[in-house]
Every structure is written in C-alpha cells, then in structure tokens.
C-alpha cells in the first residue's frame, strides 16, 4: 500500500515536471507568432567598460524604448567571451555584445552565430605587475601572463605582440606562459604576486595601474592588430533569433548607435550609467575617473573591420584553436550578416 502511494506520487511529480517543461518551451516559441504576447529578449554582455554602449543602451532605457513595451529584457553578464559564445550557440541568449575571437572559435564549430555590427575598437592594455621586471613585451619570456579566456580576443592580441618580438606563447617557462582567469581574479592574483602580467580589457588595466599594483606596459593604441584599431566589442546574434526577430535585432543595432552617440556627445553623463550597470552585474560600481580613463582608451564605432578579424582568425588557426582549415584558408563568409547595418547606414 505504502509502496503504491510512493510510486504513484512519483509518477505524478514526473508527469507534472514533464508537462511544465513542455509548457515553458512552448510559450517561448509562440512568443514570436503573435505580436500581442510578450517576447523575452535575452541579452548577453561582458562585465567590462569596453561594453559601454550596451550599458548605456540598457540604463538610458533606449533598449526598452526601441524593442517596445511588449519586450521583456533579460540581461546576462559574462566573465569572458567563451562562456558567452557557448551560451549563444546553445540558445541561452539571443543577442549581445562580445569580443570577436571567441565568436569565431565557436562559429567554426557550431555555425549558428552571426556578427551584425561593431560597437567598439580597441580598449585592451598589457599591464605588468610592479616588481615583476616586465617593462616591455621582450621581458615576458618565462613570465606568467593572464588573459580572460583561452582563445579570447585579448589572447590573440597578446600572441601578435609576442610574435613581433619573436617570443612564443607556451605552457612552460620557455616563452610567455599563458593562464586564463576572470579579470576580477587577475586583479587579486596580481596583488598577491601570483602572475606577472596580463592583457586585459578596460577598466581592469587602468584599475590595476590606479591601485598601484602594476604599470601599463603596452598602451591600448599599441596593441595589435592595427595599433588598437581592431574590433574588440561587436554585436552578435544567434541565427535562430535573427531569423525569427530580424526587426528586434535591428532595434538592438539602432540602440547601439544611439548609445554610441550619447557617449560621444555627453561623456560626463555616461560614467554613472556605466558604473550603475556594472554594479548591477557585479555588485561593484566603478569610480567616475576610472570609467573616464577607461573610455579614453577605446574608440566606439559601429563599423566592423573584417580584415582585422581575418588576421585575428589566422592567429587562432596558428595557435591550433581552429583546426581542419581547408586549402582556401578559413571561410568566414557565413559569419557575417551586415545587411541590417547597411540598412541603418542607408537610413532605412
């Protein structure tokens, strides 16, 4: 009798879970067909000042305005582009701001991501810990250098820097030894003397310098490729979202343009907005001077330099991160959908 009761209650629970599971996925899919029902737009971004246009678009309310009252915006912050790209490829976020290299790494495997627009060029610096003996790239031999994640845009820049000096990225002391860690952890690890240098997106480099932990060894406008003028933050969308909600994707691109304009026109008002959004994402805001310094280390643009991305993709191929590249080189044509950006630029 008791056994029977347990069994049937288990069966009921199981059925209910299955049913509720189906229910929630159904509502997600049906959202697109009828415009009256609310749509959830899941936006991903990284918790760096290099993503300032996203922060401003959210905090200024541009995003809600353009997407319409029907849209429910869910913001997810990531520590690095790898996590972001995995989340996008597996359908956990729809659209968002990220660095290009992890997207390329993910794209060659899953082929379900599209680059829609640029947001920001440059904004990463090489910082060296005080007392590490590193003052230039040459000194990185035998040192431990942190990057946000394996295959990140920052790592690609670091590899290019090392290449220029004839050094190699290694897993031992013969070259620059790389280690992947979240930028916030890098700050702590550098304070404890566990790592010697780091190539990081802003505001982390400036923050490390300001706290007296380290010095900027290579400034943002000397970071390859193109001396800082390379895409570091771009807007990407999942194929699925772009197919179903092209209009919403365009709205996101428009708010990106609005936000960039706002930052350029009234930088002083930007600092608190950026700080507030960071506080929401990480629980910790940033001092206005720090945001100001970080924003001075990057150039916001919606353009996307495909040649620079090609150079960066080649570095990933050479590093063994992208394998089985055909004779014609890496084919990234399916990675871009710049039609929305072109429409916007033509004023449609």
């Amino acid at each position: 009798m008791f056994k029977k009761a347990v069994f049937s209650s288990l069966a009921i629970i199981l059925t209910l879970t299955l049913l509720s599971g189906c229910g929630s996925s159904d509502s997600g899919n049906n959202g697109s067909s009828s415009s009256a029902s609310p749509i959830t737009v899941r936006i991903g971004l990284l918790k760096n000042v290099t993503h300032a246009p996203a922060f401003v678009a959210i905090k200024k309310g541009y995003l809600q305005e353009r997407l319409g009252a029907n849209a429910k915006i869910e913001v997810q912050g990531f520590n690095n582009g790898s996590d972001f790209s995995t989340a996008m490829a597996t359908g956990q976020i729809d659209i968002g701001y990220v660095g290009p290299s992890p997207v390329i790494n993910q794209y060659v495997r899953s082929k379900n991501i599209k680059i829609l627009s640029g947001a920001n060029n440059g904004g990463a610096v090489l910082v060296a810990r005080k007392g590490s003996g590193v003052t230039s790239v040459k000194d990185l031999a035998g040192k431990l250098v942190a990057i946000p994640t394996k295959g990140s845009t920052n790592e690609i820049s670091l590899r290019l820097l090392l290449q220029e000096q004839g050094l190699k990225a290694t897993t031992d002391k013969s070259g620059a030894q790389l280690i992947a860690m979240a930028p916030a952890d890098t700050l702590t690890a550098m304070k404890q003397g566990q790592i010697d240098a780091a190539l990081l997106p802003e505001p982390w480099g400036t923050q490390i310098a300001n706290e007296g932990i380290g010095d900027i060894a290579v400034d943002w406008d000397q970071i390859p490729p193109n001396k800082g003028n390379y895409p570091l933050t771009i807007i990407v969308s999942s194929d699925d979202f772009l197919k179903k909600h092209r209009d919403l994707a365009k709205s996101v691109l428009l708010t990106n343009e609005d936000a960039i304009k706002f930052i350029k026109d009234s930088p002083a008002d930007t600092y608190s907005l950026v700080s507030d959004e960071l506080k929401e994402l990480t629980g910790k805001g940033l001092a206005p001077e720090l945001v100001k310094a970080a924003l001075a280390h990057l150039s916001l643009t919606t353009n996307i330099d495909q040649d620079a991305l090609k150079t960066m993709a080649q570095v990933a191929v050479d590093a063994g991160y992208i394998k089985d590249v055909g004779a014609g080189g890496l084919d990234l044509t399916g990675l871009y959908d710049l039609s929305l950006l072109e429409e916007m630029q033509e004023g449609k």
Partner: protein
Amino acid sequence: MHWGWRFPSALQTMHTFYDGIADGQLLQATLSSLRRILVAFALSCLLGMTLGVLFARSRLLDETFGFAVVALQTVPSIAWLPFAIIWFGLNDFAVVFITTSGATWTMTIASRSGIKNIPPIYLKSAQMFGTGRGFRLFYQVMVPAAIPQLITGMRMAWAFAWRALVSGELIARGIGLGQMLEEGRSLGDTSLMLCIVLVIAILGTISDHLVFKRIEDRIWTQYGLNAAKS
C-alpha cells in the same frame, strides 16, 4: 533539439586524438597529469596509512582526531581550491595539494578499519609466539592481515585522486588533462573535451586492471581468500 556540434562524432574525436598525439600536446598533458597524480597518490597513501594505523592503535587519537577525518572526508577536495590558490599560488603544488587532500582521508579510513578488523586471535597468537607488542607485531602480522583492505583503500584513493586532480587542474597554469579539458570548453571544441574524458577513463581502467586488480587478485589467492569467495 538537434545535437549537431554539441556531441562530436567518433571520427572527429579520433581525429582530435590523433592530432593531439601527433603534435605532442596530448601526450605531454597526459604525462604531466600522471606525474602530478603519482606524487599526490604516493603522498596520500603514506599519510593515509600512517594516520590510519595511529587511529587504529590509539583510542585517544581515534576519538579526537578520528572524528575530524570523517568530517574532512565529506568535504569535496575542490572546496580547498580557493585556499590552495592563496596558500601556494596557481602552480603544480596547489594541484598536488588538492589531489592529496582528495585521496588521503579515504586511505586513512580504509587503513584504520583494515587494522581494526584484524581478528584479535591473530594478534594474541602472534604475541604468544613472541612478536611482542611493538614493531614486529605491526610489521609481521598487522600489515599482512590488513592488506586486502589496504588495497581496496588504495583503489578508492586512486579514483578519488583523479577526480580531485582534474578539477584542480582546471584552474592551474601549465599543461595537463584538466587544462586541456578547460581549453576545449573555452574554444567550444567538443571533440577535444570528449577526447580528454576518454583518455581519463582509459587511464583509469588501465591502472585499475593492470595494477590494483592484479595485486588484489594475487593477494586474495595468496591468502586463500579466493576459495572462500567462490
């Protein structure tokens, strides 16, 4: 839901495996991981057996620190990771520490019960034959009598050590199977991830079959326990 790239094909995985061997990275990672785990395993066997014997022989220790060992065993070794980073840095030592702490407590408990479960008649008759109560009793009677349990403890410690090793390596610098697994995740390279999982599984099976199982079988036969089992 379509799986597509999420689950790599056998061919892709083989290809990645071949590439890894060919460029030496996979081999190097495997060797580094093996080196770490062997050091940690040796350490935890040594520590575990010493502690186990102490607990089995001294009631005072057993009732005070013995309790702490049971408590420590329930703590997943990865919980020590934040401490290990702060104490030792992001190096091999931290990984060895985590791996050792993952395996030591299992070994301690196994050797403690191994010694405790020796039938008192063995000890009494040994003493009658003049081993005394000291080192000779320990070495000539207690260790051989506890060996079946010690081997079981070592097998378990080995498995626990692997778990701790891979999770510890995920964050440490250098190269190892854990690092490569994390690299595969960062790059969205599922074939690399599966490849590493398979390598770990194969290494585990090989070491269990070729080392522990053989020793165990031999000892069971030697002690005449195989007959009792069947």
